[in-house]
């Protein structure tokens, strides 16, 4: 079946997750082979996901770990004997 760009956009997320039913996946793939716009959108979305998941993007505030473990130490001292 021939599908239009706007339908492909609705499938991009499931396509990336390999979660589309086989017949729809083939239709989307066929469309992507000849549609430069949709394949660019797919690739950029995939790349944005990869970049965002990189640990360097979201870092903990400075001293977060030290403060957390100090607080846990206080808790452990308080309950250590039971």
């Amino acid at each position, binding site marked *: 079946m021939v599908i239009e760009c706007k339908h492909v*956009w609705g499938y991009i997320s*499931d396509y990336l997750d390999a*979660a589309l039913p086989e017949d729809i996946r083939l239709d989307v793939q066929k469309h992507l082979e000849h549609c430069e716009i949709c394949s660019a959108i797919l690739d950029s*979305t995939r*790349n944005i996901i990869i970049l*965002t998941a990189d640990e360097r993007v979201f870092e903990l*505030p400075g001293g*977060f770990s030290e403060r957390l473990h100090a*607080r846990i130490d206080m808790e452990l001292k308080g309950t250590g004997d039971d």
Partner: protein
Amino acid sequence: MTKQNDNEAAMIASILAGDAQLYHDLIRPHERSVYMMALSFVKNEADAEDIAQEAFLKAFRNLSSFRAESRFSTWLISITLNEARSRLRRQTIVRMESLDDPPDDGEVASPALLRDWREIPSEALERQETRQMLQDAVISLPTIYRQVFQLRDIEELSVKETAETLGISVPSVKVRLHRARMMLQKQLSPLLKSVNPSPKRRWLLWS
């Protein structure tokens, strides 16, 4: 179950048997995800840190109720969500955002038609502006989309685990994830400027 799960189960057993200091090691790999989940609620670093600390303390106090059939990471995130929700209720800071969040059904989000993001390599993350741009984009997502995006694409939970953790259905996870990804694509794409007019090999500058 993975090696990490086995390892965590063994550590939890030791902690419950009395080696409480091991709790420090148990939680180290989860600090970032707990903090980020808290931050998705309050959008304020100090409050998020407070919620994260409380969540880790509650998890410690309730460790004996952890059931090995679930993952420690998802259990921790559930505790964090509860902590954040009850904190918001207590503070009666009635954030209207959840009411303003667009419903799950509705029109298809149309993506931006720029294509530059596919050409950005991970080395670009060395630059503070790039990291900031991605952070801002994720933080600006409405909470319901941000949480799903974070659990699926950053913490890499399965669709099913994400649904269970957030207490929503699997189809809702899929719809929200799709919206989140499309919103990020749409928001981020125009932020790039291509400086080389050649369509094949472009060098990109951040705007």
